């Protein structure tokens, strides 16, 4: 039986790990190779790296970072952040990413997903979605550019389209919950689960194993977290022990 995955996320800026709240107040949080190595040792099932560099130089550095992490990492690595063209995605895959996350570019031009999937295979293409809750009962809309841009696109409808466009997985971040450490948006996960059989990685709001259990029961296949792992508060292994104790299948 397929195991539920626990995935630490590293935000990368100019070759360094950074952390912040709601994409703001970034501070240096270490060396990506060291952190990736530690996470694998501590039971991470996969790693997500998001390039938050705002400059072209930063993008070049990200390729070097992917190469360096690949040399030491023997678990899957998904890389996203600022991927705008199939060529950029393919460069990341060649540098050592196993999957590439596409976000804003797909909103502006959905055919990038189809083109990418036909060139590299659907299983390498992850659609990354930042969803913000609308007034009660009105669902969620997709936001982009670190939440500053409201697209007016309905998040559930966007996921429903994704499967037919050749996407292999959804990385679903709740913009409202991100950085709050009060739990994932389980209502969002439930609604999204209804419209797709694609694997879903839940993101935004994790503070503890119970939050992860709630997200997995709401329909997520994997749970992503950043801050709780960065500061050594807990490890993927410790989280997975609690998941297993509650009857969720995990990789021992």
């Amino acid at each position, binding site marked *: *039986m*397929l195991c539920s995955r626990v995935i630490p996320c590293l935000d990368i800026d100019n070759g360094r790990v950074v952390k912040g709240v709601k994409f703001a107040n970034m501070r240096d949080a270490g060396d990506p190779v060291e952190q990736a190595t530690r996470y694998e040792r501590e039971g991470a099932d996969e790693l997500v790296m998001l390039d938050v560099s705002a400059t072209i130089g930063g993008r070049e550095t990200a390729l070097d970072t992917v190469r360096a992490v*690949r040399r030491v*990492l*023997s678990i899957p690595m998904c890389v996203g952040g600022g991927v705008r063209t199939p060529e950029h995605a393919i460069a990341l895959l060649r540098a050592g990413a196993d999957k590439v996350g596409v976000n804003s570019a797909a909103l502006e031009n959905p055919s990038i997903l189809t083109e990418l999937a036909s060139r590299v*295979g659907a299983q390498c293409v992850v659609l990354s979605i930042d969803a913000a809750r609308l007034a009660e009962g009105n669902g969620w809309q997709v936001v982009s550019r670190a939440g500053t841009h409201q697209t007016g696109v309905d998040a559930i409808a966007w996921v429903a389209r994704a499967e037919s466009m050749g996407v292999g997985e959804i990385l679903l971040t709740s913009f409202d919950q991100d950085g709050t450490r009060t739990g994932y948006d389980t209502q969002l996960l439930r609604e999204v689960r209804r419209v797709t*059989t694609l*694997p879903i990685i839940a993101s935004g709001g994790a503070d503890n194993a119970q939050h992860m259990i709630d997200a997995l029961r709401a329909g997520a*296949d994997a749970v992503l977290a950043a801050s709780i792992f960065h500061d050594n508060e807990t490890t993927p292994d410790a989280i997975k022990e609690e998941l297993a104790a509650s009857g969720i299948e995990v990789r021992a």
Partner: protein
Amino acid sequence: MSDITIIDTGIANTASVFAAFERLGCSVTLTRDPQRVSEASFVVLPGVGQFGEGMRSLRASGLDRVIVEHIKQDRPLLGICLGLQLLCVGSAESPGIEGLGVIDAMVTRFPATIRTPQHGWNRVGNGYAYFSNSYRVGSIPDGWDGELSEHGGVFVASLRRGRTYACQFHPELSGAWGAGVLRSWIDNAKEASPCCAVE
């Protein structure tokens, strides 16, 4: 340590396979030159992508014949993911396109009721392997040893015959357990024939 030749399929996650063998201390070459592949001892056919595209690319370069010949001579070959599927007769992913025909089996899609693609870790024997696939072989074909795993029913996780080893999972992404799989493929291939040991 051993010389490993990885067939460069163009896009597949060859960087991960490359890095995994380097961590084992192997000397690794990435090539799509049929001549070099035909002279290689340990050959890896990795694979991410679509069955039809994969076959077209192998046929265009003549690598299809090189791979089949390599296996006929029982020289060590490792097929990973799509690499396993390309060794089969054909696939529901690309109807009408012939595979390499080494494994007498058809590749089929996971049932519509189960999470597809299968992305993640699943049990294989005493360990856990990382899978990333929408298609699979349903049962172990005659003449092959193999291991099964389960995702909406049983499916083939790996197959072995002589020095050919093919796995649906990604050993290069399966942590320390996966590194052990790669090492055993090399070790078994050497033991299986001391007369032409390739070092």
